[in-house]
């Protein structure tokens, strides 16, 4: 699926908001708070960004992108090159950080780690779950999206490090309590602090999202590729402009699909060799790395050829 940049504006000196919608104006795939998408950039890189908008809005995805200090080209490209009207590819949405039923929610965000937390706060409000947020940053000016949490000032602790020094995160979390869950997103050190503090709490209490980039086994490709059908030996070429399903269908290969968005799982195919470029919302990290199945309604290939169990 192709997305177009509808809007782009700076939240802080180094964090830019990017608003994306479908090039064809259609409804975007549904998502739940905590989800992220893969953004396939025109420079051939793919990076993950948490959705920080509102799941009720089906026209736009909102992401907040921090300019990384030592960028290998993802965030730098988004900051410097991506313009309103630019087109990017979509993978997902996927959610490894979903909100789960709880009596109380504690959110701990460090820097850009605030992004997935924002829609979670709205969800907690809708569900009537009591919550608190600890938002840590270098300095107040660097802490984006403060306007989105300001109206909850009684439940939000802003902690700009330059003014207040180190935060005693463990004290803020406190002692174990039944039915409390902690959602933490930010630098590795913060995740470690929280996880260690809660090591003895009940299973599933701490849920952490790491912004460490997903590994691709091969460079992304933008050109065409081939499908070899293991059963019949038939070879089908997939053009950059068409989906695998479209190519299979025009070659007369019976391919059942349903949602066409990589969500329902109807079109699953087994991969015998080659490396798929997974763009679905279904497979988790391990399943993607296993690389033995794929969803051709949205996914593609990283290698010249994919051998499918067809």
């Amino acid at each position: 699926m192709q997305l177009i940049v509808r809007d782009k504006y700076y939240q802080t000196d180094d964090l830019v908001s990017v608003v994306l919608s479908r090039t064809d104006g259609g409804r975007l795939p549904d998502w739940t708070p905590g989800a992220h998408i893969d953004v396939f950039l025109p420079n051939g890189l793919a990076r993950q960004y948490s959705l920080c908008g509102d799941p009720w809005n089906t026209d736009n995805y909102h992401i907040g992108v921090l300019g990384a200090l030592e960028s290998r080209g993802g965030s730098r490209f988004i900051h410097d090159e991506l313009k309103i009207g630019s087109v990017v590819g979509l993978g997902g949405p996927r959610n490894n950080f979903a909100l789960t039923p709880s009596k109380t929610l504690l959110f701990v965000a460090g820097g850009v780690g605030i992004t997935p937390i924002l829609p979670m706060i709205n969800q907690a409000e809708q569900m009537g779950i009591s919550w608190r947020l600890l938002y840590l940053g270098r300095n107040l000016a660097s802490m984006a999206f403060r306007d989105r949490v300001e109206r909850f000032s009684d439940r939000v602790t802003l902690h700009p490090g330059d003014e207040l020094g180190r935060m005693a995160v463990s004290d803020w979390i406190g002692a174990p309590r039944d039915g409390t869950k902690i959602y933490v997103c930010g630098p590795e050190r913060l995740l470690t602090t929280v996880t260690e503090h809660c090591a003895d709490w009940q299973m599933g209490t701490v849920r952490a999202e790491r912004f460490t980039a997903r590994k691709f086994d091969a460079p992304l490709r933008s050109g065409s590729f081939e499908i070899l059908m293991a059963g019949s030996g038939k070879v089908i070429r997939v053009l950059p402009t068409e989906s695998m399903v479209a190519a299979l269908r025009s070659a007369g290969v019976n391919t059942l699909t349903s949602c066409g968005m990589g969500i329902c799982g109807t079109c699953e195919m087994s991969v015998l060799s080659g490396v798929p470029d997974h763009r679905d919302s279904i497979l988790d990290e391990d399943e993607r790395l296993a690389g033995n199945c794929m969803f051709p309604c949205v996914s593609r290939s990283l290698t010249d050829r994919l051998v499918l169990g067809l």
Partner: protein
Amino acid sequence: MTAPTISTDIVTSSEDPFGPEVLHDPLPFQARLREAGPVVYLPTYNVYAMGRYSDVHAALTDWQTFECSAGVGLSNFRKEKPWRPPSLLLEADPPFHNAPRAVLSKILGARQLHTLQAQWATDADDVVDALVSSTLEFDAVPALAEAFPLRVFPDAVGIPHEGRERLLPYGDHLFNAFGPENALVQRGAGTIGEISGWVNDQCARNVLTPGGFGAEIWAAADRGDISHEQAPTIVRSLLSAGVDTTVHALAAVLYALASNSEQWVLLQSDPNLARRAFDEAIRLESPVQTFFRTTTRDIRVGGTLIPQGEKILMFLGSANRDERRWQNPDAFDLTRDPSGHVGFGMGIHQCVGQHVARLEAATVMAALLKRVKTIEVNGPVTRHLNNTLRAWESLPMRVTLK
């Protein structure tokens, strides 16, 4: 029956989609509904009906405007008390729907079912072998369509053998209860208390065998992905939605193959068509015919303004035969691509058990293809009336063996 009439800008029909006449053969009514317009008001029930593919598809997908938590039947949960505690899946909207859905999607995902495949293939061979070794003429409803799901599905969920015969009447009543309180609902009302009690008892942790879908739901509660209070109600969803649906879907594909011998021949020549055959039968017969939604705001569909808080009756079965979407929609045709049918719904509530249903059907068809040479309908078929399901009472069949 009266033809639809136009009053100001809203098309109205006085027909009763839940009356015995339409339930016996819903096709002519559905054709009139599609012809009448994108939205037709049914004063009998004070609901708005949609029968065209594009409108039904759009309404199913747009959960923001067409909500489920006011009930997916005629009854409006904002005004009437539901007959049982609402489903945490189908009768819930985001954000409450999110966690239960994520848990079930994982447990019932196609890759999680790989471990069941070999066992179900053996079970299907056993059921078919036992049947055709004893007789070549049989009623396919009890002999296959009911026998197979009842053999494999409750085991997969992990409930005990004792009492399983209650699952079919439970589902029958549940799907009737989405409609108006007519004779079909009254018929089940007397026994449903006892049956419901039994179903609820099967959802308890200590009843469910380890490794089954039910135990996995409880394990998800231990991990905190859902709450322990939610677990039994989510197990109940499987027992509610997973039995009758599959029974009537299996009957549908058996009937379609038996009454279209050239399609059976085609399937024999290319068993890879089995998946398509099942989904084509789901498209054609739509075992789940209808579901309701409730509008969360005023919404204009076609030229009609539907006010907020109104019940919308979506005809999945009609959408699946809409000539605007499907060529020659009434034909069971294995050269057709049924992709995109709404027989499993669409959007965030789309059937979470569809891979289970497809695996059941695939194993049954594979077992039949192994043993059976010809298959034909052998006597009058009888429908079983249900307010929501396109169901079967009896499907006499004759087979010859290879």
